[in-house]
């Protein structure tokens, strides 16, 4: 059985072993014992609330309780850009018009910005290939929204998620070739490796700081602004269903979109409910939907936050969870849990 839970001190080795399998796509999960150890320590301090909210890094692991393996990992950073500047390009609009010539030109413009400074970031999502099936990916990704819905006071700013940008078949980035390349004189993979160290501010230092008309870029670069990497499209859809939106911020390097939301507009904030764990009665049974949908359920304990998927459905503020579910959540009858339908309800309008 799979449970997503707050990471703890004992997870380091398993985390390292998983990091060795991540590959080059993810910059924040490198198989480096020192780096991982530091990150783990920060995560533990975050759940223990011994460091200020903006320094926190809530890291979750998906554990396969049948064999103790770590099947996946994901995280929420309390705030970005407070120790090192966090840069994006923001896409704005400028209009040039002359009545005399009857010309009206509306142009998209890239502004180098630190606007997202202080936002909380969804990051470091990785699911081991052995577990890429069923609802596992959704459980892992969406568990973070349940956490935010349970502890919204920890997240006072925007929530953001950086999406990997479009790459051509050969792994090159048309946006980089059309823009960054002229200012770096390094090839894409070299810069990619540098950014893999997690330091992107040097990019901004060398990138043009004055606003740029997108029209100055080659067609191929213009076309991929805000486009995700092919393999990232499902992750993007999933976050959009949860209430995140592309609002015109892109990565300065590959123009991948940043998805963002105010905490209050997250589906989890609107649709998640508290429920008391209670045995099924005839009444609740009668009121239960005919075709139950899978439901995300979590306990309500910050230090040992745990989430699962269940087929049980909350009815009138109560939910009947199996003994196994309760064990995974470390909950008991009478405890309060938070529930959220795994899938988005279709609007009935």
């Amino acid at each position, binding site marked *: 059985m799979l449970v997503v839970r707050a990471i703890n001190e004992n997870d380091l080795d398993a985390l390292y072993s998983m990091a060795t399998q991540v590959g080059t796509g993810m910059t924040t999960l490198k198989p480096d014992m020192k780096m991982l150890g530091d990150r783990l320590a920060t995560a533990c301090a975050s759940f223990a609330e011994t460091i200020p909210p903006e320094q926190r890094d809530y890291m979750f692991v998906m554990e396969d309780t049948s064999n103790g393996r770590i099947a996946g990992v994901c995280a929420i950073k309390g705030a970005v850009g407070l120790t090192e500047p966090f840069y994006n390009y923001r896409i704005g609009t400028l209009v*040039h*018009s*002359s009545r*005399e*010539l009857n*010309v009206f*030109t509306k*142009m998209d413009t890239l502004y180098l910005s630190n606007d997202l400074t202080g936002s909380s970031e969804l990051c470091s999502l990785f699911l081991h290939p052995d577990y890429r099936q069923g609802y596992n990916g959704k459980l892992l990704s969406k568990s973070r929204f349940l956490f935010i819905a349970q502890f919204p006071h920890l997240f006072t700013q925007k929530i953001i998620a950086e999406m990997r940008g479009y790459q051509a078949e050969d792994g090159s980035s048309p946006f980089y070739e059309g*823009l960054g390349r*002229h*200012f770096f*004189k390094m090839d894409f993979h070299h810069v990619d490796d*540098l950014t893999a160290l997690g*330091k992107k*501010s*040097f990019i901004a*230092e*060398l*990138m*043009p*700081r*004055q*606003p*740029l*008309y997108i*029209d*100055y*870029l080659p067609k191929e670069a213009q076309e991929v602004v805000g486009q995700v990497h092919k393999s990232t499209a499902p992750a993007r859809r999933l976050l959009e269903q949860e209430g995140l939106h592309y609002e015109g911020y892109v990565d300065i390097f590959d123009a991948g979109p940043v998805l963002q939301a105010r905490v209050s507009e997250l589906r989890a904030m609107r649709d998640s409910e508290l429920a008391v764990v209670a045995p099924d009665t005839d009444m609740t049974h009668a009121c239960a939907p005919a075709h139950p949908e899978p439901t995300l359920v979590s306990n309500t304990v910050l230090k040992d936050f745990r989430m699962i998927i269940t087929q049980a459905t909350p009815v009138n503020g109560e939910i009947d969870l199996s003994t196994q579910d309760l064990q995974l959540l470390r909950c008991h009858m009478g405890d309060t849990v938070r529930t959220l339908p795994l899938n988005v309800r279709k609007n009935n309008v």
Partner: protein
Amino acid sequence: MYVVRPVEAGDIAALEALAAVTMPGVHTLPKTRDKIEQAVERSIASFAAQVDIPSEESYLFVLESLAERKIVGTAAIFASAGSNGTYFSFRNDVIQQVSRDLNISHSVHALTLCSELTAYSQLSSFYVEEALQERPEAALLSRSRLLFAVQQPQRFGDRFFVPLAGVTDEHGGSPFWDALGRKFFKMDFLDAERVIGGARNRTLIVELMPHYPVYVPLLPGDAQAAMGQIHPSGELAFNLLTEEGFEADEYIDIFDGGPILQAHKHALRTFSSSLTLRVRTGDGQVPEGPLVNYAIANNAGPAFRAVTIASPELEGCEAVALSPELQDILRVAEGDSVTCVRV
């Protein structure tokens, strides 16, 4: 014999004929009879005007072949480029980018829309007949404007510039325009030039052109290559002006990317090395020793005249020998002072 003199009302027909043969371009003579008449009238009024501060004056000079009684060249100077608005150009800027982490720094070339040339005096409308282009009269014509400015500094700014037409293809297209102006104006280069009448001081430039610096590395190769390049028709002017002391690196035209030569008057040879000498009557003999070409101008304001002569080095002399015929042409007499500079 050739003389440079201010344009006169009687020159209008000749100028109209000339305009028909000069190449289509933005910095040359006006093309229509109306416009030519206006330019001539404005010039006559400018030469006649009492001027304390340079303003809307525009001085048009012609090169006349005395033998043929024919106008074979034109050159103009505007007292203040922005007298009707603001003269816009692109300034070549260098932006420093430094990365401490990578320990590297780059210089990035950017073009910034600027109005720094507004108060400069502007040279323009330079044209000489093909046959004369290799002769000292071409330099005489170009330089006469500056000789006049040396004599009448209150009529001009402390700095001068000259926009030269940029490169275009055989269809009149401009690669620089296609990469920049077209994106904002949404029209062809020649259409835009027609609509704006070759001007660089119109409100619509502020309305349409980019307010932020244009990063040169982002321009297509052919547009970059066109920056600061002159149209072949401008080569003679370019050579004469750079010899004079004009520099070409700082500004380019906002439309076609052509070079804008500019200089402080201190840096111009006509200002720094022209001599004021007395006229004495020469004996008509060719002097001994090596000869060099000089431009000689009277100091007669609206009756300005300038010619070239071959003369021994005049540096350190008190007087210049001129034949009675030349004195006639220059409208000077023995003892009058003239302004001389090597060409």
